[in-house]
C-alpha cells in the first residue's frame, strides 16, 4: 500500500545506527586520550595488528604490483613502456592499491578477530564482569584497539608500498626484460609526496574504521555463538564498505578539483 513506509523505516534505522556508532566512537576516543592508559594491552594490539598482518599485506601488495606491470605492458608500445610502467606501478600502489587492499585484508583478519573476541566476552558476561571490577570496558578493551588500528595501518601500508613496487620490478625486469637501473630511476622520479601522504592518511582512516567496527559489532552482539557469528560478519562487511566509501572521499579531498 504505502510504498514509502518501509523506505522511511529503513532510513530511520540507518540514522539510528549511525547515531549509535558515532556515540560509541566519541566515548571510545575520549578514553584513548584520558588516563589511565594500559601500555601492556596497547602493546599486545600493536603486535597483533602490525607484526602479524605483515605476511598478508606483503603478499597482497606483491602480487598487485606484479599484475599491474603485466597488464600495463599489454597495452603499451615497448618504447614508452620502460618509462610509463614504473610510473603506473608506483602511483597506483602508493595512492590506491596498497592502502585499500591492506585495509580490506586487515578488515578480514583483525576486524573479524576483534568482533569475535569482544562478542564472546559480551555473551559470556565478561564485559559485565569488567564493569563490576571497576574497569571501564571502553578504556580496557576498545581504546587499545583503536590506537593500534590508527597507528599500525600506516606502517603496514608503507611496507606494502615498498613490496608492491618490488613486485612491479620483478615482473618488469625478469619477465619483460627491462633494464633494472632504468626501472628504478623512473620509479624514484615518480615517487610523489602527495601520493604517499594521501595513502598514509587513508591507511590511518581505514585502520580506525576496521578497529571501530570490529569493536562496535562485538560490543553489541547478543545471543550466543550465533550472535557472535553475525557480529563478525557485520564487522567485516560494514568495515569493507566504509573503507571503499571513505577511500573515494579522501581521494576527492586530495586529488579532486
Amino acid at each position: 500500500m504505502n510504498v514509502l513506509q518501509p523506505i522511511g523505516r529503513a532510513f530511520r534505522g540507518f540514522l539510528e545506527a549511525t547515531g549509535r556508532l558515532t556515540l560509541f566512537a566519541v566515548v571510545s576516543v575520549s578514553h584513548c586520550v584520558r588516563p589511565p592508559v594500559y601500555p601492556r594491552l596497547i602493546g599486545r594490539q600493536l603486535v597483533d595488528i602490525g607484526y602479524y598482518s605483515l605476511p598478508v599485506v606483503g603478499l597482497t601488495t606483491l602480487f598487485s604490483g606484479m599484475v599491474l606491470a603485466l597488464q600495463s605492458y599489454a597495452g603499451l608500445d615497448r618504447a614508452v613502456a620502460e618509462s610509463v610502467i614504473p610510473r603506473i606501478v608506483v602511483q597506483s600502489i602508493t595512492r590506491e592499491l596498497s592502502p585499500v587492499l591492506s585495509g580490506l585484508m586487515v578488515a578480514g583478519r583483525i576486524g573479524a578477530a576483534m568482533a569475535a573476541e569482544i562478542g564472546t566476552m559480551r555473551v559470556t558476561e565478561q564485559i559485565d564482569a569488567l564493569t563490576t571490577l571497576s574497569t571501564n570496558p571502553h578504556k580496557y578493551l576498545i581504546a587499545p584497539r583503536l590506537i593500534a588500528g590508527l597507528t599500525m595501518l600506516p606502517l603496514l601500508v608503507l611496507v606494502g608500498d615498498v613490496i608492491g613496487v618490488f613486485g612491479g620490478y620483478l615482473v618488469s625486469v625478469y619477465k619483460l626484460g627491462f633494464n633494472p637501473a632504468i626501472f628504478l630511476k623512473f620509479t624514484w622520479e615518480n615517487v610523489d609526496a602527495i601520493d604517499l601522504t594521501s595513502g598514509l592518511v587513508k591507511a590511518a582512516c581505514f585502520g580506525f574504521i576496521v578497529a571501530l567496527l570490529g569493536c562496535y559489532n562485538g560490543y553489541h552482539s547478543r545471543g550466543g555463538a550465533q550472535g557472535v557469528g553475525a557480529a563478525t560478519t557485520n564487522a567485516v562487511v560494514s568495515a569493507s564498505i566504509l573503507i571503499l566509501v571513505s577511500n573515494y572521499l579522501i581521494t576527492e579531498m586530495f586529488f579532486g578539483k
Partner: protein
Amino acid sequence: MSARKSDIPKIRVRNLHKRFGRNVVLDGLNLDVGSAESVVVIGGSGSGKSVLLKCILGLIEPEDGSIEIDGRPVIGLPPAEREIINRKFGMLFQAGALFDSLRVWENVAFGLIQGESMDRAQAKEIATAKLAAVGLSEAVGELWPAELSGGMKKRVGLARAIATEPEIIFFDEPTTGLDPIMADVINDLIVKCVRELGATALSITHDMASARKIADRIAMLYKGTIIWNGATDEIDRSENEFVDQFIHGRAEGPIRMEVRAR
C-alpha cells in the same frame, strides 16, 4: 550517628520497573538488604532474578523506581561515579565470566591491579591467598580458565569476587550446574567468605538447599515483584501457596510455567 547509620539498609530497592520490549520483567519490586545480612532471592528460571542484580550493579538501566546503596541513590550516575560505587561490590557470575585471555591468578587479582592500581607482585600474593581460601593450590593460579572444571570455575569466580574485600557481594546462581556435593562445598565457602569479610550478601538461586544454607532471609520473586519475604526458618510455615509450590517443586499449583514459545 553510627546508630542511625545502621538503620539505613545497605541496599534499598523501591518500585523497580524493567521491561524488554513487551516483556515486563520487573514490575514494582521492593527489597531491602540490611548491613551484614545475607538475603537470597528465589524464583523460577526467567523470572528476572539476574535482571534484578544487574539493575543494582548498574549494568541495566531500569525504567522506573529507585535503588539506594548506603542511602545514596545510584540510578543514572555518571560512569566515573558508578566506578567508585562498584568498588563496594563483588559479583560471582552465573557462568563464571572469567576472563579467558588471562591466567587464573590474574583473574583473581584483576580488581586489585586494574581497579586499585596495586603492583602485580603484591596482587599475585593476595590472589594466591584468596585461591587458597577457596581450596585451590598455587599451581591452579598458573592455569587458563579454559583448563578448569565447572566447580573450579565457581571457586575462582568466588575468589575473584572476594579479592577486593567488598562490602557487598552478589551471587548469581552459585550452585547451578554442579553436582550436589560440589554445590554444598560452594555453599560452605560462600558462608565462610561472607562471614569472614562481614559482608552483605545478596544471592539469587532456584536451588532450595543452597538458599536454606546461605540465607538469613529469603524473598520470593514472582511476576516481577517480591511476593513473600521472611526469615529462612519461616519458609516452611509461610502459608503462601506460591512459596509452598516452589519449595516443594510441584508442577501443579498457582504458578503456571509458561512453556509456550514467545
